[in-house]
């Protein structure tokens, strides 16, 4: 089931997420809703998708039961603001952020975790 309306790839099942992570080295997944804290992050990702060919960008609905692996990740313990944004390298979480993030904050993480 599709939860979000963005131009980004939406991952719909836990299996699909697992497969996506196993097939791609650098992945950013934003797990959110269609709300004011999430939309700016999707906009940033849409913009960066054209420039950062070394990173795969995707979204997942926060209310999608299949997103439990993100919501319950130890790296998200204490998070109290959506979206939960996950950065994976070779399938492992290397960074996670809570709430709205700016272009500068996102690019800074991409640079440090995945290289420019």
């Amino acid at each position, binding site marked *: 089931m599709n939860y979000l309306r963005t131009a980004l790839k939406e991952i719909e099942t836990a299996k699909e997420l697992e497969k996506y992570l196993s097939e791609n080295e650098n992945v950013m997944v934003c797990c959110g809703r269609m*709300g*004011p804290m999430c*939309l*700016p992050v999707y*906009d940033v990702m849409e913009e960066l998708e054209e420039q950062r060919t070394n990173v795969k960008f995707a979204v997942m609905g926060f209310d999608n039961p299949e997103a439990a692996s993100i919501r319950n990740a130890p790296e998200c313990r204490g998070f109290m603001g959506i979206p939960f944004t996950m950065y994976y390298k070779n399938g492992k979480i290397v960074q996670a952020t809570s*709430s709205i993030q700016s272009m500068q904050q996102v690019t800074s993480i991409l640079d440090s975790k995945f290289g420019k």
Partner: protein
Amino acid sequence: MDEVFDVIIIGAGAAGLTAGIYSSRAKLSTLILNEGAVGGQMVLTEEIANYPGVESVKGYELANTMKMQAKNFGCKIKSNIKVSKYNFAGDVKEIELTDGRSFKGKSIILTPGGRPRSLNLEGEGVFKGKGISYCATCDGDFFTGKEVVVVGGGNSALEEAVALTKYATKVTIVHQFDHFQAFEHAIQEATKNPKIEFVMESELRGFYGNGQLQKVTIEHLPTGKISELKTDGTFIFVGYQPNTESLENLVQMNERKEIIVDAAMKTNLAGIFAAGDCINKRYRQVTTAVAEGTIAALSAAEYLRN
């Protein structure tokens, strides 16, 4: 040769997108340069129930529709850019971006909008998303069964405080004055809600916790007395400020850093117009922004014809 646009619009909120719709539909080559998310303050509103002709619509849906309308008329939109320099002198104006690109336009419509004010207090950045939020609709459910603080005394603060009582066991509103600036219906809704308590004539002074927000300090302004309040979360709604810092000393502004325009949305500079939350006005509504965006686009078209 560089393309020279008829109209360059700075900002893609309600005013900017409306100006984009009108100018591109008038067959003027139009570019919107947008620093933040498309939709501006509209996307911060869960439900818009007073937009004439539309019974009820989510803010992001209205923004998305406006964006598609503008694009369908041929308007180009570039988001997440950062302007480094404006050159408003001469008949052709130039806007340089931090990434080295520059764009030229015969007329400019400034609609940079506003942004929620932050408190700029110790710990505010640290606990964002870990107890501090600016959106009850987005994050309210994280605070189910918990106690939260709401900062502010306007419509947003009181309406969001009431909304938070669906989740939180107790909501404490901290406000700097001894009265609220909100509309009467919002004040009544909040004051009759048994889950809401009020700490008036007080301001927050700091956020503290261990990985997550656990307490805030509050100063009672008449006495200067500082007290601590244990809390699981704090929602900040202390108004908006115009995004006009980069335009200072370029166009005429008032003491609140709002751009001064006349009834035709003209600034003090020829070919430069402004609309939306960045201008000197009393009421900040989607409908007023849309009206001003319309006027600015029509005025720009008239300026180009002459």
